[in-house]
């Protein structure tokens, strides 16, 4: 009899645990210590930045806890669609069908907030003697129909690189960085060459290029390390090449830069709105600088841009 009671207790406990686990965590629910939780999911490009913001904001506003996770822009959008994210970080604009899905799921249109800029830098090994590259050359290097296969096609001889063979480092085919580079460099509807090394993270690209003399890669400017070289980029052969730095990005002269977005379902709730406003303050924009990205230009910092 005693045994039976014990068994039934364990059984009951199991059921409670399972039921508890199944309960979908409501996003802006009050947390364990009465803190409001904001779920912030999305772009891997933005994950370090979002984390830095969240940590600083916890000091400024202890009653709010911003929980950041990565997975890619697509993951963030998916989370916004199924309601597990309050803010989706996106390093690209949402596709029309994604916007329709958000609308269908919640009845609200997704609202876009620009929080800063990201410039994609072109990385090569430190030993590489190349200093500049044009968008056309990049398209010839990375494009499916591009002719450049060897460093000699760009007019250089890379020390320590066997056969002068070019090793193309790219990203997995559904990262926001991949989408952005494809559209900005190769053009709409174009594809990459087969045989690129499709790495799984922004950091990995820089890491690999720094150790591989033959390699060329693209990744966020924020991921630069002292061990790699960044190329200056020109729109056309006739135009001057510009360095990937903050000033050039803000001025809009650096050719491969893009805004970073945060999406919300409809107009943000009071808590989220306050957070987005804080991001655009001096403190928030200092953090974006410290993370290696480019802050929004001064004159538009009044409040979150809503489109």
């Amino acid at each position: 009899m005693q045994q039976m009671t014990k068994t039934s207790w364990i059984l009951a406990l199991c059921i409670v645990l399972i039921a508890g686990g199944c309960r979908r965590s409501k996003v802006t629910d009050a947390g364990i210590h009465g803190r409001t939780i904001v779920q912030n999911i999305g772009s891997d490009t933005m994950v370090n930045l979002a984390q830095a913001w969240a940590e600083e904001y916890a000091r400024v506003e202890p009653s709010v806890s911003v929980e950041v996770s990565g997975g890619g822009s697509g993951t963030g959008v998916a989370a916004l669609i199924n309601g597990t994210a309050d803010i989706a970080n996106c390093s690209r604009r949402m596709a029309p069908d994604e916007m329709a899905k958000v609308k269908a799921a919640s009845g609200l249109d997704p609202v876009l907030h620009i929080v800063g800029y990201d410039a994609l830098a072109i990385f090569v090994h430190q030993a590489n003697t190349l200093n500049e590259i044009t968008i056309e050359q990049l398209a010839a290097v990375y494009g499916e129909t591009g002719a450049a296969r060897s460093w000699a096609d760009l007019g250089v001889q890379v020390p320590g690189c066997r056969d002068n063979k070019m090793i193309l480092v790219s990203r997995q085919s559904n990262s926001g960085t991949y989408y952005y580079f494809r559209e900005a460099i190769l053009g709409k509807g174009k594809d990459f060459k087969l045989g690129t090394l499709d790495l799984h993270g922004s950091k990995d690209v820089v890491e690999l290029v720094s150790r591989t003399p033959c390699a060329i890669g693209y990744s966020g400017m924020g991921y630069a390390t002292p061990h790699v070289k960044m190329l200056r980029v020109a729109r056309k052969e006739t135009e001057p090449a510009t360095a990937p730095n903050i000033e050039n990005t803000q001025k809009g002269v650096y050719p491969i830069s893009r805004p970073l977005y945060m999406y919300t379902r409809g107009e943000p709730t009071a808590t989220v709105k306050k957070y987005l406003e804080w991001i655009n303050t001096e403190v928030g924009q200092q953090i974006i600088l410290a993370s290696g990205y480019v802050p929004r230009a001064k004159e538009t910092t009044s409040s979150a841009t809503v489109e």
Partner: protein
Amino acid sequence: MARRRWEIMIEVLIEWMIRLCGVSAIIFVFGIFFFVFREGAGLFFSGRFNFTQFLTSIEWYPTSQSNVRYGALALIAGTFSVTAFAMVIAVPFGLGTAIFISEFCEGRLKETLKIVIEILAAIPSVVWGFVGLTVMNSLIIRLFDAAIGLTVLNGGILLALMSVPVIVSIGEDALKAVPDSYREAALALGATRWQMVHRVLVPAAKNGLLAAVLLGVGRAVGETMAVLMATGHSVRVPTSVLDPVRTLTATIAAELGEAPVGSDHYQVLFIIGIFLFTITFIVNLSADLIVRGIRGKA
């Protein structure tokens, strides 16, 4: 009397629970197969999916905006090349180590070796991948004067290191299961230790050793994270061990997370899953048939 009834009931209950545990493997295997098949079948039978292209084209462009192509030949070649290379290293090393541990060493050395090999098995695959991406990449570039170190060689060595513990522990068990009377008889007939091993023990433990090798193959085919990081994840048919490749498993791991549920891309990834499932099924089935064949003759 009441106590009796309780005891009987608990007995029955426990019996059923154990029975459930026993058949759960079957339920899970069929459940997984059903799930994977259901997710992929929609596209497979829709008429839109070109199976010939899937098997014969190397053009893998799942997210192209103008011309989506699902050619998996390069991925299949990637999985086969890395697995085959890993086995070339792992089978002799694994079986050799198993024989050494079981027959040629004793006492403290034996215990140390077993513990070290267990530790080797406990290293998470993402750590192996990290080693491949950082240490081995530079090493291969320097040693082989290669353009890139994320290659079949790199991934193959890592997979070999990961499957050796599997082969060793199962191989050693198989050898241990050979009765000592066999050893005694061989030595009594004047055989040397080596003759005893390759004329008596290996033939006697053949089934177990084959199982060890096949489980090693299974480990290598199914491994994802390490090969994702160490082979370069590059769509191409390798022509040498110094070429980067991309495997079927790594493709699923890298792309499934962001493929919208129910989309063609998502379903093609599940078709790759079905394909992998079929490969392992054929490997296991043929191994089973071989083992039965051997048993039938004996």
